């Protein structure tokens, strides 16, 4: 019995609640929060090693066998997402403890519970339990999005909250329909029951599948459900925006999981099989337009997130091992890099005084070289230029589709890169080069404040150097996802 599987949930839950008890002791609260987040690293690494050799970890909560009890399932995909979350969370938190965490109440509590929700969504093997974890990560994200207050944040958050409340309602309708038609909630069991469903239930099942796409699409910011994202990410406190880089990926994860396991694209999920790719490409295009049109660095990065969602879902939408493998390599890259850029944008804004991160004539930065190098690194990675991981990811994606029908995907992905290139070079030139006056208006950022962003962006280099093993892992993951029978056997076969 491998109790480690549930550690990524218990750790943040307990840490969050304890730090709620420690409201009066902010220092201790910080230490606890950082400690717990750091603790996630070895745990998730351990789980990755476990899942790395193709095994499935099945954890029957309450010792009830699937499909009756709730099970946590650890496979390659889940392990990857958990590790990514842990790395991201730790670095973001290290940035936050430079002061952002004191700009509102209970930051660390919300942060930990946000992690609980995210990890839970990755781990659970039960559809309704997935709903519960979505609610946890959503309510926590509401709190975090509002962290720091202010009119813009409040407005963006209000929209975000209302939309997601509607989304939750739709989620429940979808779950209900699915239960009414298949009579179970465990994902593996659902896969079996859906595949064996009588034809007269097809209508209900298709409706459920599409409703889920709408719900997950809202989380992942799939066009036309992406409109809430730029305002929210563009105005959230820097560490929050950086952490949210993983939130859209939760939606992507849910889509990938559902339409490889429960509704295989070549089976019950045929609608999604047809729709996902075009929608993803449209998202990519809309994001690229947004990138070109943005007039603030953070908003630009927010649109880069939209672009990345489009790219990821385009890869997944191919529903072949090449595409999914490419997406899975691109996913950590884009998450870490966009998070790094959000933090960097914050550092830049602090050094430009009242001009913030607007693309306007501003004072020179206090640390032009350091921040400049970081920005260049991030820009190259984000625009998908050689030699960094962004390029490799896009290369894999372009190779995953046969040239005969590659037209749309290739041109949109490549033109998207060009848009990023133009916009980012403009942004860099405006912020770092086109400066007024020769004296910096703000002090320098200490190393502790620079380091997290630097490490996040440097991850792109690491992902390039260690591309070979990484891609081996992601391709194995794609293969595992495309052969769901293993998953089903592992879950339904596991008797406590």
């Amino acid at each position, binding site marked *: 019995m491998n*109790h480690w599987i549930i550690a990524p949930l218990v750790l943040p839950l307990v840490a969050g609640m304890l730090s709620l008890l420690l409201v009066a002791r902010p220092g201790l609260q910080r230490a606890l929060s950082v400690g717990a987040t750091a603790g996630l690293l070895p745990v998730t690494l351990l789980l990755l090693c476990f899942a790395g050799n193709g095994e499935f970890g099945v954890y029957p909560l309450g*010792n009830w066998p699937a499909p*009756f009890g709730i099970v946590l399932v650890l496979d390659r995909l889940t392990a990857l997402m958990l590790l990514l979350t842990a790395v991201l969370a730790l670095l973001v938190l290290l940035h936050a403890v430079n002061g952002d965490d004191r700009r509102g109440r209970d930051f660390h509590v919300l942060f930990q519970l946000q992690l609980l929700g995210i990890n839970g969504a990755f781990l659970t093997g039960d559809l309704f339990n997935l709903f519960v974890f979505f609610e946890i990560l959503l309510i926590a994200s509401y709190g975090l999005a509002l962290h720091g207050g202010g009119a813009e944040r409040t407005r963006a958050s209000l929209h975000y909250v209302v939309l997601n409340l509607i989304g939750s309602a739709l989620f429940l309708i979808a779950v209900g329909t699915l239960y009414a038609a298949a009579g179970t909630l465990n994902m593996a069991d659902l896969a079996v029951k859906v595949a064996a469903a009588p034809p007269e239930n097809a209508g209900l099942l*298709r409706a459920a599948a599409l409703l889920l796409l709408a719900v997950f699409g809202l989380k992942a910011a799939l066009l036309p459900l992406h409109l809430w994202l730029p305002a929210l990410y563009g105005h959230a406190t820097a560490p929050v925006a950086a952490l949210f880089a993983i939130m859209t990926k939760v939606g992507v994860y849910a889509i990938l999981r559902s339409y490889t396991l429960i509704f295989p694209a070549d089976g019950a999920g045929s609608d999604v099989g047809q729709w996902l790719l075009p929608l993803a490409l449209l998202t990519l295009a809309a994001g690229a337009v947004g990138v070109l049109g943005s007039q603030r660095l953070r908003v630009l990065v927010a649109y880069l997130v939209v672009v990345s969602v489009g790219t990821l879902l385009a890869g997944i939408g191919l529903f072949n091992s090449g595409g999914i493998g490419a997406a899975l390599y691109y996913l950590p890259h884009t998450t870490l890099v966009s998070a790094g850029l959000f933090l960097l944008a914050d550092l830049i804004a602090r050094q430009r005084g009242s001009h913030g991160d607007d693309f306007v004539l501003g004072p020179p930065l206090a640390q032009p070289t350091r921040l400049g190098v970081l920005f260049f690194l991030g820009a190259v990675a984000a625009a998908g230029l050689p030699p960094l991981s962004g390029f490799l990811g896009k290369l894999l994606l372009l190779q995953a589709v046969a040239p005969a029908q590659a037209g749309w995907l*290739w041109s949109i992905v*490549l033109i998207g890169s060009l848009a990023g290139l133009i916009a980012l070079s403009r942004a860099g030139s405006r912020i770092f080069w086109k400066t007024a006056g020769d004296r910096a208006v703000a002090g320098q950022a200490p190393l502790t404040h620079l380091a997290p962003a630097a490490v996040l962006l440097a991850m792109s280099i690491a992902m390039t150097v260690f591309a070979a093993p990484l891609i081996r892992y992601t391709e194995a993951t794609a293969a595992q996802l495309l052969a769901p029978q293993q998953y089903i056997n592992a879950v339904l076969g596991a008797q406590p």
Partner: protein
Amino acid sequence: MNLLFVILLPLLGALLPPLAIRFGRSASAWTAAAITLAALLFALEPLTTVFAGTPLEAHWAWLPQAGLDIHLRMDGLAALFVLLILGIGLLVILYARYYLAERDPMGRFYGLLLLFMGAMLGIALSDHLLQLLVFWELTSLSSFLLISYWHHRSDARRGARMALAITGAGGLALLAGFLLLGHIVGSYRIVDVLDAGDLIRAHPLYLPTLLLILLGAFTKSAQFPFHFWLPHAMAAPTPVSAYLHSATMVKAGVFLLARLYPALSGTDPWFFLVGGIGLATLLFAAYTALFQHDLKGLLAYSTISHLGLITLLFGIDTPLAAVAGVFHIINHATFKASLFMAAGIIDHETGTRDMRLINGLWKYMPHTATLAMVAASAMAGVPLLNGFLSKEMFFAETLHLSALGALSWILPAAATLAGVFAVAYSARFIHDVFFNGEPIDLPKYPPHEPPRYMKIPVEILVTLCLLVGILPAFTVAPLLDLAAGAVLHGPVPAYSLAIWHGFTLPFAMSLVALTGGIALYSQRHRLFALHDRVFPEVDARALFWIAIERVMDAAHAMTRALENGSQQRYAALLLLAALAAIALPLLGGGVPLGGPVPAAPIDALTLLGALVMMAAAILTVVWQRRRLVAVVALSVVGLVVSLAFVRWSAPDLALTQLSVEVVTIVLLLLALYFLPQQGPAESSPLRRGRDLLLAAGVGGGVGLLAWGMFTRPYATIANYYVENSLSGGGGANVVNVILVDFRGFDTLGEITVLAIAAIGIYALLNNLRLDMPATDAGGRPWSGERYPLVLAQLTRFLLPLALLVSVYLFLRGHNAPGGGFIAGLVTAVALILQYMASGIDWTQQRWRLQYHPIIAAGVLIAAATGAGSWLFDRPFLTSAFGHFHLPLAGEFELATAMLFDLGVYLTVVGVVMLILANLGKLTQRCAACKEGE
């Protein structure tokens, strides 16, 4: 291995000069030079083998999955470029040491220069398409950073961005082209590609592949109509212009043409595209160069035109033409680099590059003048200089061409015309700058010779021009042979590098070019006037920036139009998606909506309930603007919902729904206290109609779903729970057992949600300032001092009772309707009543309740209960229970599930109290602050 070092040394060495700069400028320069020399040393051994006639290959596995391994290969062509890159690089490093001013950050300069050098070497040595592309983009990036070296200057910034945008776009096209090529050939190895020429040319994808690859090559080599970035790249320091933008980087495009010549050439598209573009560029740029007043501008356009010439030579598509192309690559690199350096010296010494000011420098800097004049003559194609040889080969090739049939005369004519212009602008460079009267108010006066070492590179290059020009057979021949062989991927045709072929037609063309050029230049004043009259200044740069700004504005407008910050639109889109998701399968699927199961008859009471519920819901909508009434209508809906739960055998739900209902309504009333009591009428009839339609659609869809599921047979895993509830969960109330045991994890999550909600709300209410609405409503009991005495007494008496009830509900929960959640709500409601009746102060004087700890404790207890099962090595939340005999209560059951339920109870109490009490405080504060005013 050496090949790899040749590339890696500069790439990694790029970090050193910036570090070395703290030991002085010379230190930095020497580091750069040393690294270049080292690379040259490593290149020596491969070079010798290559010259011995055997190409050198090296391979390291890196990314087989992406088809990305490291394949290096040095053949003749690569060798030629390696020599150019390293040789000229060395000279440029020396030159720049004296060119750069004290205040220029020299470390950065050399670092970037080495970075570029490494990338360029990578292009030359790559034996793998994708790997070549990686280096290709790297050169674009380093060129971007070098052009913007003086980034305080707007022209530098803009020139850099323009260059990056154009070459970057080309690079992306090239990527697509390479992917196609790799797909056709089945390998990205260039050697394989070269062997597969026929396969490629026959392939249906040949044309798109060719187009994409040419797009890459033409943008990089500044071919018409993508040429305009190059003149603006001249904002870079002159060493950069000499190195990147004349000798090496812009040659990458023609290098690519040469590299893939065996694979892609030999077709009509190739001939017309490459030849046509080359010819157009050659003529257009040669003509434009003549009218530049900026020294570097003239050189830039002449570079473009020479690149066009080389492109045209490869386009002509005969072996000899290819040889001539390679030859001209060498020659152009030597004389143009030296010319740029000379221009840099003049700029450096006079402080301007405007040829209308710079005149008669002969008597101030004769040495430099001599060098410059020799180089310029080479550019013009004067005999005894290298330019002459390749140009004559070019003329000869234009003559042999018959592909154009009757129009074959066009090409030689055009070539000669281009020659005329070339001579003319070379003449201008010489005469205008070094003679032609006296200099006109130069920023630096009088100009004088530059530092000794600044001239050495120029001298070396000019010497090369002469040597190659006079003794081609003994100098350049072997290299040219080797390179040409590599380009042709086969035997090199016989050609002679003699200076004198007798009085041939090509020679005649050269003479025409020379005399014509001189004549043209002598008439320059009229010509300039004519030019200004006929061709009004078309500034491609301005057009480019207008285009870019247009695109960005358009993008901004589009984004704004789509994402207008309107909540209503976003919500409508989401609901529309939901509608589509439901409607498409149900209506489009061709599956019957209803199923076989017959519907049950309905009784009057149920029908009445349904009618009441619908009526109440509709009234909520109708009265939405009279908000208090709307809340009442809403609460009616809630009540009927709980009745529905009772009606269809779900007592637990009914209880829960009821208690939640109470709290929610209280909450809404309190909230209303701060919101306008009346909503304005704003949405237009049109919008209302649209919304109603959408709403009806979604509602109908959900109704259909419900109908669909009601009428379908139904098999679930439910029985398992009923059977195992007592035996496995120790409770008769299956719902409760599911909540605390089978699916206890959901409940843990659920109370966590509650806890987070409370925390978030607490943060929201914290230092929230709200003005009191003029009208008052629902919140009245909170506002003033008037506490209805009866109610106060009543609640104080009720409170213990309510607590008792909640304990009872709690304990029976496991076996009969009830449980921690409901008990918690009952407690909370009792306490709230207390608040309402007696006011905050009274209540809080009596209990000092800290709600945060209660919440935390609740969740932690639940979690700890779950973790407890680890002690018995059971999974999280495994329950245990036993029956105990208590003296009074009799047979009594105790289950860990109850501990879990206790956690639920505490959390619920804490959460509800936290929310309502703080909202209450808020009302009081506002009441206070209102009285204060």
